[in-house]
């Protein structure tokens, strides 16, 4: 009886459907609770602190646990522990903390632990600009840990997307058993704007795929599945998990055959599903002879620049990746086939432009507008660059 009452109380304590005026970081925290997150582990770092602070207040209200660990290393590791105990878990951090988490993110990828990491990007390198915007972690998000693995990274550009994509991040993490990163930035994380929380039945929630086999036949990394069903600790499966290269039983192996099978599957989980996972948005790209690629806060400046350019008669469009990884290259194909130039605008010294080049170099002209961290390029700055490209 008392358990039922607490469950009801937990539901009552979730953010109700409706319209709110809310900060991005807090919207992400509330979204995590709605997605079922009941464990948060983190370490203080600007500009992500609102998430941890909010979770420390809200988690106990819904029967969840908050721990501020001794560092980001412990925090990200504890997430995998909680996930294997059957509890959805999340952390939030920024540049230096994200660097410290890399080994643990690689571990989660290796043992296929579904965890969510919000990285509110600030200016780097090193301690850099703690309170100011940056987008310099695009490459680290994908390649930060050693070895070959795949992750998924979302790029919210509004408070609404901080909410929507955090829920999506949990669903993707649990559907594919991968670490998922919400790669936002200081501006989107700390801005306050309108948030629309839909009815709960419009919010899909994904959980684990439950093993079908009885414990004595269960293989924790059964290769008959691309994404193996997940057993939780304490359920009687008595399974073994190792961060060493392992076979289907979860036992260490130095066989090249086993290594090939494991690493290939870890990669294929995401690459075979890139079109199901990858997302983008585009504005006025249908007839564009120049397509701006911009994401996060920069895409909002770029949108204004595109509108301005159109007013001046320039056929410019905006392509906004919603996932950095997998990069939604197929969304650019139509514009590339038409021979449109591409201009990548980002608050770093040229990171996503490398990915665009990987797909389309030698097919169309690819331009890069780099921007040092600390400020968002104004629409005017981007418009100047657009004109420069046209004059070439």
């Amino acid at each position, binding site marked *: 009886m008392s358990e039922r009452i*607490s469950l009801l*109380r*937990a539901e009552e*304590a979730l953010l109700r459907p409706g319209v709110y005026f809310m900060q991005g970081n807090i919207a992400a925290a509330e979204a995590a609770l709605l997605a079922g997150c*009941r*464990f948060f*582990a983190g370490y203080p770092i600007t500009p992500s602190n609102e998430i941890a602070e909010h979770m420390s*207040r809200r988690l*106990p*209200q*819904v*029967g*969840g*646990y908050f*721990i501020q*660990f*001794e*560092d980001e*290393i*412990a*925090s990200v*590791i*504890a*997430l*995998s*522990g*909680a*996930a*294997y*105990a*059957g*509890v959805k*878990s999340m952390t939030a951090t920024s540049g230096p903390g994200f660097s410290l988490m890399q*080994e*643990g993110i690689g*571990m989660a990828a290796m*043992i296929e632990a579904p965890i969510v990491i919000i990285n509110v990007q600030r200016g780097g390198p090193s301690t850099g600009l703690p309170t100011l915007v940056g987008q310099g972690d695009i490459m680290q998000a994908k390649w930060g840990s050693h070895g070959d693995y795949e992750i998924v990274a979302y790029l919210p550009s509004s408070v609404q997307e901080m909410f929507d994509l955090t829920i999506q991040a949990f669903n993707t993490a649990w559907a594919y058993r991968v670490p998922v990163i919400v790669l936002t930035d200081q501006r989107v994380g700390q801005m306050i704007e309108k948030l629309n929380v839909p009815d709960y039945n419009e919010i899909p929630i994904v959980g684990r795929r439950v093993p079908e086999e009885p414990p004595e036949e269960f293989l924790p990394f059964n290769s008959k599945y691309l994404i193996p069903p997940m057993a*939780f*600790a*304490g*359920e*009687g*499966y*008595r*399974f*073994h*998990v*190792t*961060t*060493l290269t392992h076979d289907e039983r979860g*036992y*260490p192996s130095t066989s090249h055959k086993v290594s090939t099978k494991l690493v290939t599957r870890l990669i294929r989980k995401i690459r075979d599903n890139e079109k199901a996972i990858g997302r983008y948005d585009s504005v006025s790209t249908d007839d564009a002879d120049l397509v701006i690629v911009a994401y996060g806060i920069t895409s909002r400046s770029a949108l204004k620049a595109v509108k301005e350019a159109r007013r001046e008669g320039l056929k410019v469009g905006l392509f906004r990746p919603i996932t950095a990884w997998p990069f939604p290259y197929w969304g650019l194909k139509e514009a590339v086939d038409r021979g449109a130039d591409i201009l990548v605008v980002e608050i770093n010294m040229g990171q996503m432009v490398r990915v665009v080049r990987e797909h389309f170099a030698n097919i169309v002209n690819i331009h890069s507008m780099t921007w040092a961290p600390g400020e968002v390029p104004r629409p005017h700055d981007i418009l100047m660059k657009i004109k420069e490209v046209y004059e070439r």
Partner: protein
Amino acid sequence: MSLRLPHSRTDPLKSLLRMERFPHIWCPGCGIGVVVKCFVEAALQSGIPVEKHVVASGIGCTSRAPGYIKMDGFHVIHGRAIPFAVGLKTARPDLEVTVIAGDGDLLAIGGNHFLHATRRNDDINVILVNNFIYGMTGGQYGPTTLEMAVTTTSPYGFVEGAFNVPYLASALGANFVARWTPLHTKELTNAMLEMFKVDGFAIIEVVSPCLIYGELNNMPPLDMMKWLKDNTIIDHNADLSKISVDFKKPLVLGNFVRRYRPSHQTRLRELVKKVMGGGG
């Protein structure tokens, strides 16, 4: 005519071992195998259902133990067994979570986690096998290497100083602190049984012989076993500041510390109950 062997006394233990993975990787004379045997013995006697026992470890010789134990087991990355165990235990309080790892893993790379998990009084059990060296990587010195010991990275002798593990754990506030050796199987098993009952951070240091250490320091495992047999004193009330490991004086063993500070997880649960009950 077939020979019928007598039913092995240790048979029930096999149900808790991954027999298909034997022979194990440990060197002849290593003490870790004995620790595993004591652990499964204690787990069987604990009365806690086997599916509720979980073992976690980092990387190193000792950390291979969960690979041979037929329980839910997590062989995670170097130094991080404790935070993984804290995540498991916090998320699922009905689990009995035991970390089995070595001195380098828990006290060097994982030192900060050890420090804070003890301070927080996280409700986990830690079996720290101290063999004074990084055995798996070939014999480098670690945070418990003895004074002037020769290792592959201290060829002229070790001059840094070593942790006194029980003294350290006690100072940090652990609820249960013990030290035994693989020669004291009964006492070690009993200490583990007591550890399972502790609500809070419990640690047993197992001072163990190591072939790698022995070869470099003229103390092969059998000689060390003999030394342990002849030179240990059991003193549960010992002054912990005076019990650092030193082969020039007797090794003090015992169940040194029993405290009843409620664990971090118990306090978190109480907090959640209060917040939910009181509407936050």
